[in-house]
């Protein structure tokens, strides 16, 4: 195809484009694809038989169960938080809003290890309310509640930060219309707000879930690493790896890698869906 002078002026020559694209793909291949592929090759190095054997092991099973429990509690909790925070921040004007937004993002700027530590200082034997908990025989750290708390902490911002800009952009005219037609507050929320934000909500939940199931640093501090009891999949991966059981470690890791791939797939699909809807809205706006 002959190039017009205009496109020569605003783009690079073909060799430069080709070289930059190749360089970018090499960067992706070396830093992203290679680690991903190696998880599966290492897991299957000794064949499928040993791979499934490693996954059927009771400690691996209990790690999988605990990971699911932690995510099943943490994600809905942060979903409810995200909805409440976004409703307050996006639909109303009040003082201190920007401070509140910064506070919501705080868990992203705290090192996961520090996140675990703060719960040790609260609930550990030397902690603030640790002695009281001890007297009443309640275990939080080195037990499941601690793991759930640490998981909740690291996933606090996901849903909220996805919903706030979305709901701000949508404004509140539709809600006001529903209310003036006699809908109750909850009806308005369920029938008007929720359908409008469902894709953003799904996006936030997917990312929160990936982080919840994969969290390592924060959970590692509060877990106590009791095999078969307080190990999540990432912690179990660490133990197996340190015992030189590489097939077992990578077999468990491959479950998490599959989860990551599913997460990325759903995420791209939601993004594609949102683009389609935006394009349709634009087309409708032109027609109307």
């Amino acid at each position, binding site marked *: 195809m002959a190039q017009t002078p205009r496109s020569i002026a605003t783009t690079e020559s073909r060799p430069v484009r080709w070289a930059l694209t190749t360089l970018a793909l090499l960067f992706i291949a070396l830093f992203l694809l290679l*680690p991903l592929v190696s998880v599966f090759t290492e897991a299957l190095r000794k064949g499928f038989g040993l791979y499934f054997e490693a996954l059927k092991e009771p400690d691996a099973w209990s790690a999988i169960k605990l990971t699911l429990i932690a995510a099943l509690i943490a994600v809905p909790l942060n979903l409810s938080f995200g909805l409440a925070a976004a409703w307050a921040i996006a639909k109303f004007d009040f003082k201190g809003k920007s401070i509140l937004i910064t506070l919501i993002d705080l868990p992203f700027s705290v090192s996961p290890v520090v996140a675990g530590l703060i719960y040790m200082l609260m609930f550990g034997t030397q902690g603030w309310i640790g002695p009281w908990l001890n007297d009443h025989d309640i275990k939080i750290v080195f037990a499941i509640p601690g793991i759930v708390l640490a998981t909740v902490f690291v996933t606090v911002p996901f849903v909220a930060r996805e919903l706030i800009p979305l709901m701000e952009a949508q404004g509140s005219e539709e809600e006001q219309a529903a209310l003036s037609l006699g809908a109750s507050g909850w009806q308005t929320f369920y029938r008007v707000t929720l359908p409008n934000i469902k894709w953003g909500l799904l996006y936030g939940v997917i990312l929160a879930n990936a982080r919840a199931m994969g969290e390592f640093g924060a959970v590692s501090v509060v877990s106590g690493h009791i095999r078969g009891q307080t190990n999540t999949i990432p912690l179990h991966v660490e133990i197996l790896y340190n015992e030189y059981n590489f097939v077992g470690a990578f077999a468990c890791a491959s479950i998490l890698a599959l989860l990551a*791939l599913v997460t990325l797939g759903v995420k791209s699909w939601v993004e594609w869906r949102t683009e389609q809807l935006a394009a349709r809205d634009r087309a409708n706006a032109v027609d109307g």
Partner: protein
Amino acid sequence: MAFKQHSVLPGFNLALGYTLLYLSVIVLIPLAALFFKSAQMPLDAFWHTVTDPRLVASYKLTFGASLLAAVINLFGGLLLAWVLVRYPFPGKRFIDAMVDLPFALPTAVAGISLATIYAPNGWVGQLFAPWDIKIAFTRIGVVIALTFVTLPFVVRTVQPVLEDLEKELEEAAASLGATRGQVFRKVILPTLLPALLTGFALAFARAIGEYGSVIFIAGNMPFVSEITPLMIISKLEQYDYVGATSIAIVMLLVSFALLLVINGLQWWSAKRLGRRK
């Protein structure tokens, strides 16, 4: 102005009340416990703990490696964003989705995978072994792991700005006789600068606190390849809660300072882009 402006929508008190209660219980009170714990400690004891030579070595490694990883991603991220926005190539949607892999792949999985690839007998490690260059279990390994986990930041901050960049500006510059290189340096780069710096700062901040992906590849040798978050863990393993708290305070102060810088950069970026419209 009153605390809240009038609105016909219901549920403000419930939503804000729940938000504040939730944040307090999960985030604010536990963080306050950390500062409360450290306040019980005399200042010179605190200073003595946080300036321990082994710890200082870990600060240097954590900062140095994080800085290096952020610089690698500054260039790599700009290149990736540029290619993804400007050039058509097969499999683009797949590559675009893959950029987020470090956010989706658990850090421990990345850690053991990178440690295996860059070990002397691994896929990449064996290429360097004949020259006696070790990557895994050295400081280079730390940089590799941090580069992996912070890869998406610069791409994802630069990409939207590049997409919105008006072609007319470049055409105008070119029609006035600017070469392609001049257009890039004098027209495109200044527009991208706030986004580039924001992505750089986000990557750096994330790298400072990173733990899971690093500990497997670092080798964790005292004074050589121990990162600061690992020092907190090792203090905790010795039941030295005061020591662990002191290091955590240092890390938190650095994080908060970076958070301020990032907010400032985002404000600058928004102002810059707003003015152009």
